[in-house]
């Protein structure tokens, strides 16, 4: 498999963490949903089982969501992903399926419901392919057990994940709040 890591960038993505206990994760996510100006969001879990459990929970909370994971057949996955890309649903819960980063312009919020263990996974989830590099916010739910992975990933990617502020400036991730200059786009 071709390593496409160098094509991915964290530029333009503001990264935050929220410190939580396992039992607080859904509550935390629910509050994020109510506070953030989500155009489209992708929420990552570390197992297929947790993808299904979380998708069910999100639906119970009154939010619409699709989900995809590795145990679904490719055809089904493709259809769900295609529909999400078309904007038919606001939120997508998934496990690690993307190997090129998310190239959906409409996705302005990515949430790591489960923090990944490896920097490559983190980059695939959060990173954007260079040709876009548009604005987005990434929120990582961090438990005490995640401290080693948090440290490792920050070190390896040479990035900093900051504590989530009381209010997140919409100009960091909401397109309408930030007049983007197409001339300023970098290759």
């Amino acid at each position, binding site marked *: 498999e071709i390593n496409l890591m160098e094509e991915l960038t964290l530029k333009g993505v503001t990264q935050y963490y929220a410190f939580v206990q396992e039992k607080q994760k859904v509550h935390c996510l629910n509050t994020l949903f109510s506070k953030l100006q989500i155009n489209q969001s992708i929420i990552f879990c570390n*197992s297929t*089982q947790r993808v299904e*459990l*979380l998708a069910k929970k999100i639906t119970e909370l009154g939010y619409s969501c699709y989900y995809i994971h590795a145990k679904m057949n490719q055809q089904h996955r493709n259809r769900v992903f295609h529909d999400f890309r078309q904007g038919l649903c606001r939120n997508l819960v998934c496990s690690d399926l993307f190997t090129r980063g998310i190239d959906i312009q409409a996705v302005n919020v990515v949430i790591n419901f489960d923090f990944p263990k490896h920097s490559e996974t983190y980059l695939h989830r959060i990173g954007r392919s260079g040709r876009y590099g548009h604005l987005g916010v990434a929120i990582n739910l961090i438990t005490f057990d995640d401290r080693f992975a948090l440290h490792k990933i920050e070190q390896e990617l040479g990035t900093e994940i900051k504590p989530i502020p009381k209010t997140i400036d919409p100009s960091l991730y909401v397109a309408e709040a930030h007049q983007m200059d197409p001339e300023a786009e970098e290759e």
Partner: protein
Amino acid sequence: KKVTVNSKNNECFSAPTQSYLKDFDFESNLALFNKKAVFQEIENGFPELSLSSGP
């Protein structure tokens, strides 16, 4: 291992939806984690970082 996974999932997904009426308190939870100190400790005490060494 299986038991651990299941109990973690139960812990995570079993709370009744009504318990989320109040906003999650980001600030007071952030205050429970001193990232700088924790990182310092990792750098001093665990030169060979191992994820499996967690509790």
